[in-house]
């Protein structure tokens, strides 16, 4: 017998407790209540966001599987498909950075190989608090080590991501991990249960008492006692997962599996419920058969444990032996723990007694909220003074923690294993060649600009998708689809709920215009500590296809003479909400740059057109820090200087550091410049030649004032932030 107090302790509301009684037609016992709370928390049920997620565009001719599976799947040609998703592990990473981040990486990789795909690339988006906050160093070093510790051991390259710092994350960091895998199009596996009578099999690591109720922890706000939640953080074992990966792929190669689901958030509970509910079946599990690593685990503990590296599958009857042999070879547990039934209920037994019996439908789909929301739009604009010396500003900005080189981070990740990484971390998008193909590759990127989202969530959502689109075009990849990872505060706060609704609106609009459907996603709410929410952070991960790697674009020039610098896209000089405004003028309010989706689409297509015609090989999109930072990075990577000439009608700092969207820098060989400009003119694409690559300095010419900074100096400033930070 349970009470409303117990329900509340498990994270359910009073009303939700009443609902469980209604669905059960009796008072649930503690195991049943635990199962309800695990399925109905925000992390597993999407109860606050579902209504709005349904409005996202999810279809396109190349989409094989949209949201609702372990990961999204898109067709990439030649009989292959890309499988990908991004997921958050924010709460655990704040409590225990190494294990929190490591198990985040482990979890998302499992989502990918559950579907039959071999993971080929990992990315991660990290948002830390202010660098001067006392916890930041510890969190940063722990998270990076944890991501490396897991991904490196698995032998999957970590090829990109983002890392920025803002005081808004001081007490609530974000760790979002993305994995991309590749699978044969007709060998994709889904989370389904098939027909009654089929055996339900548990494989992988044993179940322990770690991470019990982790998904509920991830669905609650933090308070002063959050450190006490450390025991709810799971502990990762990447070695076991590597074995699990190889064993699963070996089994998938022979025809044994009906359905498979990894045990992630809410462990055995969510995997069994989701699989059985999908085909409108029932499921019966004998908990005595579950491999456990501790004595006397209760049914509640077994069902709610989030021990890592476990999978649940339904096998074709008669193939048990073949499957077991493979798992014995890989020294993993294999246990037939139950069967698919036609009862439409989940029935658990232990010691020959029924310990839980719950109808599946309300468990899987029982809750959806239409929470009140308030779209708070601030139209206030601010004037950003712009009289600083451009050269001093460039030195400050290139060494800023958000704009500097992140090699300190990605050199701790094995980004080359598997031998197909042809676009290194540190550029617009990571690129992995499609293994075995002559010249095709996947380009993968992640993006979000939280300061834009904070000013205007709708525009911020749109911008995040647009920047991903730009990142992919700038390496010569055709953008195909996205996964989102929506990190917000408490949805019970109508302003936060308004941010969620607005951001989804913005993402939706951008995805439609740019033809990048949302095929997978994750929502992380309650990112709030002591009542203070994080900046809205609708993180986007995007995948594009490079059809011929000969036309891949880079941001390193290989020829040094007669190289013109051309800007594609319109420059107005928007400084509000820019990094320049924040770091140089110390102003962080105002309006973010506007996003013109049609321009994004046209300018991106134009870049791909130039690449396909072999008119360019060097391109970089312009984003944080504006034109100057983008160009300085090309100079640093290529070890060559530039001379650029400021147009008359614009202020120097606005020109150099404005963050107008839909822009790219391309470097053109002089004999091709004319053709490019004519093509741009013909297609109505704004374009201007601003200077040449030459010399050893970054030089801006205007009003006879020809200041310059050596590239070597910029390079040192850009490369040393992390080393200096950790030596302090």
């Amino acid at each position, binding site marked *: 017998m349970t009470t409303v107090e117990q329900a509340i302790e498990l994270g359910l509301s009073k009303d939700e407790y009443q609902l469980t009684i209604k669905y059960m037609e009796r008072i649930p016992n503690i195991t049943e209540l635990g199962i309800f709370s695990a399925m109905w928390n925000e992390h597993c049920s999407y109860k606050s966001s579902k209504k709005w997620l349904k409005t996202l565009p999810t279809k396109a001719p190349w989409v094989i599987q949209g949201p609702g599976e372990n990961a999204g799947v898109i067709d990439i040609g030649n009989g292959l498909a890309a499988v990908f998703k991004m997921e958050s592990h924010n709460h655990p990473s704040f409590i225990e950075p190494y294990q929190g981040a490591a198990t985040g990486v482990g979890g998302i990789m499992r989502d990918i190989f559950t579907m039959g795909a071999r993971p080929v690339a990992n990315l991660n988006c990290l948002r830390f608090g202010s660098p001067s906050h006392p916890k930041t160093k510890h969190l940063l070093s722990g998270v990076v080590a944890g991501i490396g510790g897991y991904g*490196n051991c698995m032998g999957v390259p970590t090829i990109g991501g983002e890392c920025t710092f803002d005081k808004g994350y001081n007490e609530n960091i974000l760790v979002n991990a993305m994995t991309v895998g590749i699978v044969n199009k007709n060998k994709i596996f889904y989370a389904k249960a098939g027909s009654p009578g089929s055996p339900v099999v548990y494989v992988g690591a044993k179940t322990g008492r770690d991470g019990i109720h982790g998904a509920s922890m991830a669905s609650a706000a933090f308070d002063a006692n959050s450190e006490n939640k450390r025991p709810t953080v799971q502990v990762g074992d990447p070695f076991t997962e590597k074995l699990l990966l190889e064993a699963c792929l070996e089994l998938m190669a022979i025809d044994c599996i009906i359905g498979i689901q990894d045990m992630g958030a809410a462990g055995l509970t969510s995997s069994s419920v989701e699989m059985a509910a999908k085909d409108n079946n029932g499921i019966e599990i004998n908990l005595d058969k579950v491999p456990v690593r501790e004595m006397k685990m209760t049914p509640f503990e077994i069902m709610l444990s989030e021990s890592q590296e476990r999978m649940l599958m339904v096998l074709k009857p008669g193939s048990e032996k073949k499957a077991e042999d493979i798992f014995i070879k890989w020294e993993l547990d294999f246990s037939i723990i139950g069967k698919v039934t036609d009862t439409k209920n989940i029935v658990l037994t232990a010691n020959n007694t029924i310990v839980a019996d719950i109808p599946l439908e309300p468990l899987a789909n029982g809750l959806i909220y239409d929470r009140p929301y308030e779209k708070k739009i601030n139209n206030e604009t601010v004037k950003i003074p712009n009289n600083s010396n451009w050269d001093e500003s460039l030195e400050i900005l290139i060494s800023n923690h958000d704009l500097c080189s992140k090699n300190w981070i990605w050199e*701790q990740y094995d980004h080359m294993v598997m031998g197909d990484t042809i676009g290194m971390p540190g550029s617009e998008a990571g690129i992995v060649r499609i293994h075995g193909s002559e010249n095709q590759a996947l380009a993968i990127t992640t993006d979000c600009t939280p300061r834009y989202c904070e000013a205007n969530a709708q525009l911020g959502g749109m911008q995040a998708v647009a920047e991903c689109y730009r990142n992919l075009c700038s390496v010569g990849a055709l953008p195909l689809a996205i996964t989102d990872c929506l990190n917000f505060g408490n949805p019970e706060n109508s302003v936060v709920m308004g941010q969620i609704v607005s951001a989804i609106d913005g993402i939706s609009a951008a995805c439609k215009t740019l033809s990048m459907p949302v095929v997978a996603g994750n929502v992380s709410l309650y990112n709030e500590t002591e009542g203070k929410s994080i900046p809205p952070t609708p993180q986007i991960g995007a995948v594009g296809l490079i059809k011929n790697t000969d036309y891949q674009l880079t941001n390193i020039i290989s020829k040094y003479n007669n190289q013109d610098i051309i800007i594609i896209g319109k420059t107005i000089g928007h400084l509000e909400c820019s990094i320049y405004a924040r770091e140089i003028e110390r102003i962080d309010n105002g309006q973010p740059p506007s996003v013109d989706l049609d321009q994004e689409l046209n300018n991106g297509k134009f870049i791909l057109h130039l690449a396909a015609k072999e008119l360019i090989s060097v391109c970089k999109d312009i984003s944080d820090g504006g034109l100057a930072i983008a160009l300085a990075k090309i100079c640093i990577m290529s070890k060559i200087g530039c001379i650029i000439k400021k147009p008359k009608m614009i202020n120097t700092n606005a020109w150099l550091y404005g963050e107008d969207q839909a822009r790219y820098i391309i470097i053109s060989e002089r004999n091709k410049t004319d053709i490019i400009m004519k093509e741009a003119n013909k297609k109505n694409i704004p374009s201007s030649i601003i200077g040449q690559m030459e010399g050893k300095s970054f030089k801006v010419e205007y009003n006879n004032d020809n200041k310059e900074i050596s590239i070597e100096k910029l390079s040192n400033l850009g490369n040393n932030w992390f080393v200096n930070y950790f030596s302090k």
Partner: protein
Amino acid sequence: MKPNIIVFPGSNCDRDVYIAIKSVIGTSPKMIWHKETSLENTNLIILPGGFSHGDYLRSGSIASRAPIMKEVIKKAKNGTAVLGICNGFQILTECGLLPGSLMRNSKMQFICKYSYLVSTNESKWVNKKQVGKVISLPVAHHDGNYYANNKIIENLVKDNRIAYQYCSDEGVIDDKSNINGSINNIAGIINDQGNVLGMMPHPERALEKKLGGKDGINFFKSFFEKLG
């Protein structure tokens, strides 16, 4: 050439080295599971990189006791060429085929990047053309900090058994170019018979300009020619 690649649970560069060897010499190596107990008809045994047994206990230590290792040791003592890359090098020191040990990197962090290397000695593994030439190969390890006592180091130097050393792009072997704190910048060593090479850098990752470099090709060719 009849290469065999030993696959341990947790090996993750086995496929990469398979592809590298196949592309350089056109022969497909045979993959050998760690539970096998015999090796037939091979003249090159490769212990690949990765995290055998999760690097638990110590990197390479559990793998060094795998059933196949008795056979690998026997073959090595009879003169068969054995190449250990990264985790393979760690396994070779753990099983005693090579002296010394590989400790945690001096900065205590995993490190993955291209490193410059130079070989000052001609050997079964390094032909004359390669001696003194600066090459660039990636490293990816947490435990690559080579340590051995003075006596061992003296012998390695005296017998010209240091195969590769970390250096600058101009070939200067100094503290600045020592990426992981190894004694004498050691990146790879050879056993006293000369037929066993262990090295931390990954030649199999450097076969194409697109991947960041192609010095791995000459590395493999250099000893394939000698092994025949």
